[in-house]
């Protein structure tokens, strides 16, 4: 039995493999889509789907980092707060201090990296549990964000800054697909950022030593250490990367909204953790893929958008998301216990 399986895995190609591995979540995604397409008129339209994807691009970017943290058997709940703080820092520099555009970007990015560094240092070197360390930085980040804004929202009027997320790429010949039938569809550039970052994360996890080390540490930290891997360093680095990704998310989100409130990014960690877990990543670490996470991101996207289109109160959306997480994890647990 085991022999046949492993040979089959070896011979089949990557696409078939992908569907096999993620069969459960893909099926879930299809079912959700069918439900929303049948029950509502406006869900299955090209413009709605594009909007939905664009609205979840920042979540996808954060998920790249969250995936790494969870792969190591840890977590980062400070991501939403880091998005808020970096977005706020960028907006404050541009609007209140009339700072140079590039300088503002660089400083925002640095703030994100530093928060990641603090997280990583506390977790890898001071051995503070990841949940506690990132809970603390979450609180600090949100606090600083409010201090900077003094509770008032900041408008961004810098054209270059607003173009970061505001740029759209028109797809010619798609007039028929749009709502009014005259204007061609356009894709927001933030969708492209998200796709690039997901691709880079895939490369990082699958084609570099770094990626192998992350999987090794998540799978068995002691064995990784005994194999000569600097487990502390490679425990820290993913948090730094996550901080950087959050800064990118913060800048994009601030630019998309053309302004920042001190609540920017609140509860983003929930969507990111949900997407990664639904995508089949084990909370105990060591197993999980970018491919699975993409499906998880899509499920979260479809769920909130579909419920919106159906006119379901946003408070109820949280309830549904929670239920989906439980279902996804139960399926994962059952699948694992079956194997044994």
């Amino acid at each position, binding site marked *: 039995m*085991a*022999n046949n399986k*492993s*040979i089959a*895995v*070896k011979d089949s190609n990557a696409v078939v493999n992908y569907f096999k591995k993620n069969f459960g979540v893909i099926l879930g995604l299809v079912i959700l889509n069918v439900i929303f397409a049948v029950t509502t008129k406006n869900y299955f339209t090209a413009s709605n789907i594009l909007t939905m994807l664009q609205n979840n691009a920042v979540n996808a970017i954060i998920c790249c980092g969250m995936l790494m943290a969870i792969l190591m058997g840890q977590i980062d709940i400070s991501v939403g707060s880091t998005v808020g703080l970096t977005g706020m820092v960028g907006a404050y520099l541009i609007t209140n201090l009339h700072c140079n555009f590039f300088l503002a970007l660089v400083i925002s990015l640095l703030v994100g990296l530093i928060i990641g560094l603090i997280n990583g240092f506390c977790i890898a070197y001071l051995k503070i549990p990841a949940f506690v360390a990132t809970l603390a930085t979450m609180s600090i980040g949100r606090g600083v964000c409010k201090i900077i804004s003094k509770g008032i929202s900041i408008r961004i009027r810098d054209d270059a800054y607003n173009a970061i997320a505001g740029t759209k790429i028109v797809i010619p010949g798609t007039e028929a697909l749009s709502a009014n039938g005259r204007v061609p569809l356009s894709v927001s550039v933030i969708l492209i950022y998200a796709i690039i970052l997901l691709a880079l994360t895939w*490369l990082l996890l699958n*084609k*570099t*030593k770094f990626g*192998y*080390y992350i*999987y*090794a540490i998540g*799978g*068995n930290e*002691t*064995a*990784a*250490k*005994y*194999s*000569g*891997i*600097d487990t502390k360093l490679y425990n820290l680095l993913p948090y730094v990367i996550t901080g950087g990704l959050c800064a990118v998310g913060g800048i994009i989100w601030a630019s998309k909204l053309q302004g920042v409130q001190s609540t920017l990014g609140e509860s983003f960690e929930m969507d990111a953790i949900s997407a990664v877990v639904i995508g089949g990543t084990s909370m105990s670490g*060591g*197993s999980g893929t970018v491919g699975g996470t993409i499906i998880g991101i899509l499920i979260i996207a479809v769920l909130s958008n579909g419920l919106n289109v159906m006119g379901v109160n946003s408070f109820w959306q949280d309830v549904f998301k929670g239920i989906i997480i439980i279902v996804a994890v139960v399926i994962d647990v059952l699948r694992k216990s079956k194997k044994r």
Partner: protein
Amino acid sequence: MAEKLLKMTNICKSFGTNKVLDGIEIEVDKGEVVALLGENGAGKSTLIKILGGIYHADQGEIYIDGELKTINSVSDAGDNGIRIIHQEIVLVPDRSIAANVFLGREYKKNGLIDSKRMQRETQALIDELGIPLRANTLVRELPLGMQQIVEIIKAISAEAKIVVMDEPTSSLSHAETETLFGIIQRLTKKGVGVVYISHRLDELFRITDRILVIRDGISVGNVKTKEARREELVNMMVGRELTSYYTRNAHDVGDIALEVKDFCNEADGISNVNFHVRYGEVVGFAGLVGAKRTETMKTIFGVKKKTSGKLLLDGKEVKINKPSDAIKQGIVYASEDRKQEGLVLMNDIEFNMGLANLDEYIKFLHIDKKAWGEMIKEYKEKFSIKITSSKQIAGDLSGGNQQKVVLSKWLALHPKVIILDEPTRGIDVGSKSEIYEIIDELAANGCAIIIVSSELPEIINMCNRCYVMCEGKVSGELKEADFSQEAIMTMATNRE
């Protein structure tokens, strides 16, 4: 004639094809202390686990007070008055002694916990045993030895008929050992039967009435302690026939590869360890459980921190602070615990074999699948590892194949010195013999090899030289010509 308190007859137990117990018998009278003596792996623990309901015997009967009993679970054992005190301490450190003693069977008053009564009764028991402890002290505040004593108090606080102690003195100081002996005497006066497991012969002579020696799952001796002689016991323990599946060819021994000088690691109780190993030489490390051989090797490998001492490689001092330093110097360590410390079980063979050497196979976004695959193929053929694909999950392999994967991982680095900690533990006979072949070939190629083993025949048949450790010290060194199980065991039990 009165019925025996405990009688276990014809107990058999196999794990897979490995027969661990083969018709063993044990009898314990009321108020009697019976010692179980045997080498590591002789089957003592398995026997005790069957009595304690953790394992189920394939065959055999257990009688208590002459009545046939079925013990299928830990609670069955408890109901029959059997109390087992394991080596590991399983107490809740932040709770009081009384709370620990009554854990799981707390007294209640009006639906709430009656902590006063529990404290009173615990204190009464402590006083009765003559131990200077207060029942409301937190377990965390006690020294390790006293925690062990609390574990014993906990075990006997409920009505006990038979108390089993597995190496109870391994973490006890001299004074605490005396306390323990006091407890045992009080227990036997009350008619409790005690089964006492220890490697320390002196203790057995002092405290036990009868000694049961087991070897390879059978009883090989049952003697009254008064009539027993030390040499006789050692002979019974180790006197197995030496099987012939060892591979050992004569080859040249070169210069000193690794020299360890005055090595200390205070945290682990390792003091002044000195030894050396030459290129092409196989050096054994014998000793009993608790001799700190594994800890010593882990300190050399950089997993644990040394407090003082020097490491010389090729005559030059090397600094090793972490495993990667050791690996860079060409010193590798294959752990005794494959599953925890050797392999990432959920990942595949390719992943595991390459893990220590990724620099070789991954160069920025380019994975050299060809070189990686060739390495796997080379070792797969060389060690005849039974795998169908390099994508097979490591956790699904047999123990022998897992060990070969671990060895391949290390040997692919072409180390100067390889430390093999219990290289054949839990491995079937066929794979064992193959691993001996691998070791012999490595030595022929000039690798310096250190084998830590609890199986004396393995050391005697595979090594050029051996060191014996006892309680964190090297208690002796033997040349091949002087190898004998008796000599090694004497050094291993040599305590001042």
